[in-house]
């Protein structure tokens, strides 16, 4: 069980308020992702939940119990750190067994659980090695193993994959998701990578300067961004944001059109411009179009077969049913 409720939680470091009053509920079994630019307070929020930072005011409850004053060791949560934070003086086996030994579990049961965790995480051959002798991916697995054996109420991950190379990252992402499906335990995952957020989350919490900008499922955020910040943050490549007359004609201060919602043509369209740099991904091609008079660059996504040369004229037509409209305050209209 792991339903986590934050009730008007604030956090200040000295005079600087990093988290303004914030309410948030994470349901039992949910995979929640905190996402936002660097320095927006994601780690701080996670550490408040973990108990590694004290709240300045407000309450935190886990499964209905107020844990605001409870030390991290008694909250029943497990955390995986970006730096892995393995115990360098202990073997992999001892690292994984550590939380169980601290809980004074039976040695036979500890051995059994270590074996089980090592098997599922592919660590059997490394049980007697020290963390220093392992690769980054293996260390990450040990950190996860150490977290799962104690069957916590929730797992907290702080950018656990950012020290891994791209290929390994994708693999570990799947492993963590797999783990979530298998254990069905609440997981809170911090990342600044919106692709990671989109692919993993049941619920995304978009943060900016400690404020929650929007909470919702990946598709909700993608389809109905509540404001310009979320619109610009979710989706890759980012949404095209257009101001001026083109926006005015839709009765908005700013309109947003996603690259995949613009069709291209060599002959006719609503807008036109010249093709700049293009990115060929094989399946898709992204064209960066200049000189449209709408914005510096308009990014469009086209089929992989479509080919426009650098400097060619291109005509663009946005899909009218998926144009996002924002007012002068940057809030969504309609």
């Amino acid at each position, binding site marked *: 069980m792991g339903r986590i409720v934050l009730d008007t939680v604030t956090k200040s470091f000295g005079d600087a308020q990093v988290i303004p009053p914030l309410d948030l509920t994470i349901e039992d079994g949910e995979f929640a992702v905190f996402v936002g630019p660097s320095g927006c307070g994601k780690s701080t929020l996670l550490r408040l939940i973990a108990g590694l930072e004290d709240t300045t005011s407000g309450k935190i409850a886990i499964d209905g119990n107020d844990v605001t004053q409870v030390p991290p*060791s*008694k909250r029943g949560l*497990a*955390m995986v750190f970006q730096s892995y*934070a*393995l*115990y360098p003086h202990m073997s992999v086996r001892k690292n994984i067994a550590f*939380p169980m030994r601290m*809980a004074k579990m039976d040695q036979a049961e500890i051995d059994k659980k270590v074996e089980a965790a090592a098997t599922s995480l592919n660590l059997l051959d490394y049980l007697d090695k020290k963390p220093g002798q392992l690769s980054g991916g293996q260390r990450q697995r040990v950190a996860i193993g*150490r977290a799962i054996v104690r069957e916590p109420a929730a797992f907290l991950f702080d950018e656990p994959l950012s020290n891994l190379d791209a290929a390994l990252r994708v693999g570990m992402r799947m492993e963590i998701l797999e783990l979530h499906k298998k254990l069905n335990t609440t997981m809170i995952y911090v990342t600044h990578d919106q692709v990671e957020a989109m692919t993993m989350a049941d619920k995304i919490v978009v943060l900016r300067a400690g404020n929650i900008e929007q909470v919702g499922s990946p598709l909700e955020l993608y389809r109905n961004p509540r404001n310009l910040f979320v619109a610009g943050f979710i989706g890759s490549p980012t949404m095209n944001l257009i101001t001026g007359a083109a926006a005015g004609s839709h009765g908005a201060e700013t309109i947003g059109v996603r690259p995949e919602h613009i069709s291209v043509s060599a002959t006719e369209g609503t807008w036109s411009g010249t093709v700049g740099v293009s990115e060929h991904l094989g399946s898709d091609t992204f064209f960066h179009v200049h000189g449209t008079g709408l914005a510096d660059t308009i990014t469009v996504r086209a089929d992989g077969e479509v080919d426009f040369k650098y400097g060619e004229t291109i005509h663009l037509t946005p899909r009218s049913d998926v144009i996002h409209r924002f007012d002068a305050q940057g809030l969504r209209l309609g």
Partner: protein
Amino acid sequence: MAIVAETSRFSKTGRPILAWIVGLIFFFPIFWLVLTSFKTDADAVKPEHLIFFTPTLENYLNMTENYDYWRFAQNSVITSVFATIFALVVGIPCAYAMAFNPTRATKDVLMWMLSTKMLPAAAVLYPMTFITKSVGLFDTHFMVIVVLCLINLPIVIWMLFTYFKEIPKDIIEAAQMDGVNTWGEVREILIPLAWGGIVSTALLCFIFCWNEAYWTVRLTTTEAATLSKLIEGNRAPEGLFFGRLSAVSAAAVGPIVVLGWFCQKQLVQGLTFGAVK
């Protein structure tokens, strides 16, 4: 290119030679001390017997006959060992708190502790003598242990603090998440990870305690007198009996030099405050 070649040639041959010269300069007084301790008092001051003389154990026999060398040695061991243990027992929690839960005052507290070392010991000699005598602690093991512990505590805390600082905070926090209480953190994480540093600190503290002379000489007479007092006692009444004095000194510093020799590696690490790894 020429410069590069020259420096590498210097570091190959020049540096070891320089190191040996410096080493010998530092070692020479000890060598001289030991040499003199095997001369008769008469030989010790005769230039013609500077190097060539008939070695004798007379001084050492004399020392063990006239003084209870073993009692002094025992006192040195007892006071140094317990002072070191107490300094660690107080210093480890203290350095731990400052390293992992620093506040705005931490830097000032560290500086203040160091500043106590700047007070001239002589300034408090009279009050110390008066107080220890009036509460009946003069010339007791307990008082010597407390004094040795206190005068070394600042350096012990400073050293431990620098070692603890090197342990990533994440690891301590991971342990907290793994359900460890404060004592468990110290026992399972801090002490094993900082073991080298703690041993270096303990060794250095022990050596400082052993060598301490100002207070041990002035606040003891017989009961709790250490080897420093033995040397001092040999100097005062009998004047310039260099052979005898050397024997006493050699017997006093001998154990600590041997200890230092065996713990060279730890000590170097300790004295460089973990800068060399």
